[in-house]
């Protein structure tokens, strides 16, 4: 990571009983295509960290790109790849709600803004 790193964070609230299925689909289907578009998977986390089918889970995927030029390259690639949004649509039966945010380290914000 550098101070120019941009973080793309997906937080997904997964229905109870579907955490393992969602994570497997994410790793097998979504990750390879996102990686091909230029994103780097920094980490994939889940909470609660236990396979309990009675609990809803929050799955958090943090992706990185090294700067806005690379961010735009990945974003434009995704817009020309309908499989990305199609995949999210196919996951809807397992997903209660989700967010996607684009983030940076606070210490980097001022410098990133001087473009």
């Amino acid at each position, binding site marked *: 990571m550098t101070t120019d790193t*941009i973080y793309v964070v997906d937080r997904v609230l997964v229905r109870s009983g579907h955490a393992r299925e969602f994570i497997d689909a994410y790793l097998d289907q979504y990750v390879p295509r996102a990686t091909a578009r230029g994103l780097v998977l920094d980490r994939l986390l889940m909470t609660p960290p236990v396979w309990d089918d009675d609990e809803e889970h929050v799955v958090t995927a943090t992706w990185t790109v090294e700067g*806005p*030029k690379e961010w*735009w390259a990945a974003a434009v690639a995704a817009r020309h790849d309908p499989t990305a949004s199609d995949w999210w649509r196919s996951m809807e039966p397992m997903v209660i709600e989700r967010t*996607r945010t*684009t983030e940076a380290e606070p210490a980097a914000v001022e410098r990133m803004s001087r473009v």
Partner: protein
Amino acid sequence: MYKVTRVLDLHDPDDELTTAMAVKRLRSAADASPAIATLVAPTLPGVRNGGDLLVHLQFREHDDWLRSRSAIDEATSDSSVRSLRSVEYIGATGDRAGRRSWSPQVYRTLLLNVEDSASPEQLHHFERATLAMPQHIQAIGAWQLSRVVHVEGGSRYTHVWEQEFSDLADLHCAYMFHPIHWGLVDRWFDPECPDQIIADRVCHSFCASTAPLIDAVEATNPHARAR
């Protein structure tokens, strides 16, 4: 101000002679109209879904446009033109437009389509964030976010987001690379993001411009917060 923007795709944009003739014909038609400001120019490399020629006309009144429309229609339907998209809109005023520079070299317009499913709150948030961009990006010399009143050409557009820049680097770097763009505003365009309300595909078009074109009524305090 009643504004008309037409984005033309040519059959063969690499045919320089035919393109030059099309520009000349369009400029003649624009000059003969009662438009008080006109721009007819080839688009520059880097546009996305932005056409080959950009035609922009401004009229004091809607009736002025209606009187000249048939001549413009004829000029924009020449055999060299493969397709056109047209939007008509009333240039936004107040806190939806502003100017801090009078020496533009690049005119950029973004035609976008907010989906009908967007809530009023989502639309308001998107518009407010878009209009906050000039506050953060000093390279935007002038700006205006207007709502479309009439559209033709097979694509649906609801908004026109115009800017002027002093050079292409200001558009390609200062504007595109600022965190407010990729970190805030783009979420409404991202088909992977649940916040998306802008249907793909936008028309991102720009061309050379040597005179101020955006009809911001008065200079806006660049430090004023857009609402």
